[in-house]
């Protein structure tokens, strides 16, 4: 039984065959001329069926896109700051998309505060070639937030302790 929250109510629930396709491609799409044909052969179904299922998952946002994910460290984006902001709850839906629109922001979310230890409710992951770069980006965000800025901080990652992709159990 699959349960969706309101934001991800796509009207489409993946089934057993979709799951198999996801499991087969979670480490990547085959790098062969006809990747869907290759997947079809592995599952004993037609390439048409495979393509239709991928297209449907794309249409419903189950798959965001079929794309290359760069390792940003190797591309020279070595400074990665999680910027966090305390903004009024009634302003956040207006500010969030504006901050998400910056090219240097890869993720932007509204998350819960944990008062008094954690007053921040708006998270924006900022990438730069250096920490100076990130500081410039923070100033740009700060300009957008203006008087709604009730405090902010930046947390740099110093160590990756674990990193695995999405994994579906068999």
């Amino acid at each position, binding site marked *: 039984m*699959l*349960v969706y929250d309101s*934001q*991800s109510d796509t009207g489409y629930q*993946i089934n057993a065959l979709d799951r198999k396709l*996801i499991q087969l491609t*979670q*480490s990547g799409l085959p*790098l*062969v*001329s006809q*990747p*869907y044909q290759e997947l079809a052969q592995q599952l004993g179904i037609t*390439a048409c069926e495979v*393509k239709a299922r991928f*297209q449907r998952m*794309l249409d*419903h*946002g*189950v*798959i*965001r*896109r*079929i*794309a*290359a*994910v*760069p*390792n*940003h*460290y*190797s*591309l020279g984006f070595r400074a990665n700051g*999680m910027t966090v902001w305390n903004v009024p709850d009634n302003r956040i*839906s207006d500010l*969030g*998309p504006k*901050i*998400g*629109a910056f090219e240097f*922001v*890869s*993720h*932007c*979310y*509204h*998350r*819960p505060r*944990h008062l008094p*230890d*954690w007053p921040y409710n708006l998270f924006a992951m900022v990438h730069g070639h250096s920490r100076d770069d990130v500081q410039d980006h923070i100033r740009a965000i700060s300009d957008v937030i203006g008087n709604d800025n009730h405090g902010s901080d930046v*947390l*740099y990652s110093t160590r*990756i*302790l*674990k990193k*695995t992709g*999405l*994994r579906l*159990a068999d």
Partner: protein
Amino acid sequence: MPAAQVNSRQTIQDKFELDQTDRRIINRLQDGMPVCDQPYLLVADELGIQEHELLSRLQAMLDNKVLSRFGPMFHAERLGGGLALAAMCIPETEFDHVAAQVNELPEIAHNYQRTHKFNMWFVIATEQKSDVERVASQIESTTGYPVYNMPKIEEYYVGLRFPV
């Protein structure tokens, strides 16, 4: 996974040189590839290169870890699972020990050390939405430290667009 092992991943590709064609491939393929019989041929034509060259360059960039991945990017919640960012405040002397305890759980997808009193940040990804709370409680009882659960309330933007 031991932290040292993971760290070494980050430096491997320092010496891998990207040429202009690699950069165009990365930029083009961050936007997404259509679903069709020969998608690589289609993209290669757009870029004015041969299909086999696109495939071999993609393979090389994956091998050299310039690309973390190439393929469908799944929207975890829309697969029906649970997903939450969570943070902990761990004293320096206990940090590696607690990190190992947390990382041992298969539901922990990413875990980063960060420069803050809240110094450990990880993603809990579960098959069932209801399991996120269970995993958080399990971490609290195993480690003896509170887990600050910060599931997203609203998403404004997710995407990686690194012009290279």
